[in-house]
């Protein structure tokens, strides 16, 4: 093994010190009020679950095709609005999202979920087939194309979906809260549900990438793009499927997030930004990286809002920036990134 250059060593020591400080500080706060610590930790974990579902689609598309889909957040937002409209139609406007008053049957949530995800997956597929397929390898041009599409989608959503920010109603058969044995906490069930879905999505993607031929090609794509191109005509089918799955995951995130948080016109830029940060931290194209990145972002976001010293909690967004700079300073390609 070659020796570590002294500069890198200094940076590593510095980062170690920062992390140690953060750990001690959070530990001190946790000991002070363990109940809050657990709840905030769960807030962060469940948020991370949502981020992971969205970002995994983003990183999958990038890993295989080197396409940065800047319309990923727009797909997220579209799915939320599609599901919301459909749910209103199904329930005749009865299913208010309000706490304790959901009148939505299980189908009133599942059907919008499936339809919205498929619709958005299809939009992603059309996007890829109509605009991106002919520009393969021109990464910047593809990014610009998706930016243009995101601008158009945002404007059309504004024109066609009126009203204020709303929530999708969770099925009334879901419990509102679950009781934890710990500190007598009752915690929103749906947030836990999102976390479970995220874990399931992660395992499914992992199995797909490790066990299937499709996954083999995706893995090859992350390591060596030329090899993928050399695999023959089938590759167009693989690209199309990847885009479909990626967009589908954005849609899934949109419906989950729309139920857990809200369906909102600003969702597109917010979740594009979160996806970018997650994959920049984790490394583009890496599933494990997306998981780590989502965890880092979710936890920093949740704890920053609460644990910064009084008067400074408004600056928690800057912690995310610090995190980003820290990672990039040490690993320009992200924690799990590999050179293209």
């Amino acid at each position, binding site marked *: 093994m070659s020796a570590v250059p002294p500069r890198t060593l200094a940076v590593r020591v510095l980062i170690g010190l920062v992390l140690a400080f953060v750990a001690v500080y959070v530990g001190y706060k946790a000991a002070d009020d363990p109940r809050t610590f657990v709840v905030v930790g769960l807030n962060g974990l469940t948020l991370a679950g949502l981020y992971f579902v969205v970002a995994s689609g983003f990183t999958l598309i990038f890993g295989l095709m*080197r396409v*940065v889909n800047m319309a990923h957040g727009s797909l997220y937002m579209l799915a939320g609005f599609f599901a919301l409209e459909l749910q209103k139609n199904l329930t005749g406007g009865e299913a208010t999202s309000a706490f304790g008053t959901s009148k939505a049957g299980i189908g009133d949530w599942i059907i919008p979920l499936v339809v919205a995800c498929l619709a958005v997956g299809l939009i992603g597929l059309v996007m890829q087939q109509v*605009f991106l397929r002919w520009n393969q*390898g*021109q*990464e*910047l*041009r593809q*990014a*610009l*194309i998706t*930016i*243009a*599409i995101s*601008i*158009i989608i*945002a*404007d*059309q959503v*504004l*024109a066609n979906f009126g009203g204020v920010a709303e929530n999708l109603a969770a099925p009334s058969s879901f419990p509102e809260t679950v009781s934890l044995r710990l500190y007598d906490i009752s915690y929103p069930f749906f947030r836990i549900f999102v976390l479970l879905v995220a874990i399931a999505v992660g395992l499914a993607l992992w199995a797909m990438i490790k066990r299937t031929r499709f996954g083999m090609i995706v893995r090859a794509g992350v390591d060596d793009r030329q090899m993928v191109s050399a695999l023959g005509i089938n590759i167009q089918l693989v690209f199309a499927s990847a885009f479909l799955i990626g967009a589908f995951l954005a849609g899934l995130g949109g419906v989950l997030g729309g139920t857990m948080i809200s369906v909102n016109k600003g969702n597109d*830029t917010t979740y594009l*930004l979160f996806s*970018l*940060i997650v*994959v*920049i931290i984790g490394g*583009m194209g890496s599933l494990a990286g997306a998981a780590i990145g989502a965890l880092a972002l979710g936890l920093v976001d949740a704890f920053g809002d609460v644990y910064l010293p009084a008067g400074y909690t*408004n*600056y928690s*967004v*800057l912690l*995310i*920036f610090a995190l*980003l*700079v820290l990672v*990039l*300073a040490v690993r*320009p*390609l992200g924690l799990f990134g590999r050179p293209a």
Partner: protein
Amino acid sequence: MTRSPHLVERALWWGPGIVVVLVLAAAPLLFTDFYLSAVLTKALWLGLAAVSLTFLAGYVGMVSLGQVALYGIAGFTMANLVEADGGSAIAWNPWLGTLAGILVCTGVGLLFGAIASRSYGIYFLMITLAFGVIVYLFFAQVTQLSGFGGVNNVDRPDIVSNPVSDPANLFYIALGTAAAVYVLLRYLGRTPFGLALQGVRDDPSRMRALGFNVPLLRMLAFGLGALVAAFAGILSVWWNTRISPGSIDLPRTLDVLIIAVIGGLYRLEGAWVGAIVFTVLDNWTRGIDIVGGRFNTVIGVVFLAIVLLSPGGLMGIWQSITDFVGRRFAGTGSSPPEAAEESAHPS
């Protein structure tokens, strides 16, 4: 024997340029105060913001979405240091504030460039986008510096006069700045530094192998882009007389990208061509019920069409026309392909 097509091509290339210069020089006589200010002056400073991107993209192959954030840093720094409503209560001389704004912006550009310049292509694009959004959030959150309502009635040097009632001064200042930046960037392209940047654009690892310090070159280029963006930021605050986080939010970031792409990412002139198209379209479509009724959809479609049809933007199309006409005049079609702009795509 191929002299005549060259002459025609040159005439097509320089003719409109000369007309533009003449029209601009006499603009206060030709246009109303409102048009001079809200369309032309705005196009000049937006063009400066866009040219900082065009320079990075065309000369160094760095497509940055952080230029709006950078001009925001210059604008906010100045607005906070001089007399104004909101922000910190310092009341420096406006020139001093301006200088400080430019220096701080360039400094941040260099620092950020040091981090981001190790990333290339779309990685760089994404990192600068994240940077841009976080700068926006910073100013939205640190209310000591701005607050959501921003800094109003920012003091200006006397020479700027009142941009509403007496817009000619600011117009000429913006025109002079734009012209100076354009000429200097053109000149820079032929200097060792400029050539080295273009080498980095075309092949960074080859440049390393030749003995160049590529990260340093990219960092300096980013700093230079920040300097140009700082001019745009200062001018925008003088023009608006205010700055708020909303002045540098994501839609504004995309506006500058759209302007640069519509004009042509790989030619400096394109920045201002795109800016004038943008401001004219914007002003024209406001208050008019266009089909579908929405400016952003229109501009999004135009943007998409340009990216799909002509990666060189309007300047690229103009180049194709001059080439085409030139070939017609030559009568053979044997003139060599203009590879400069096409092959310069850093993809």
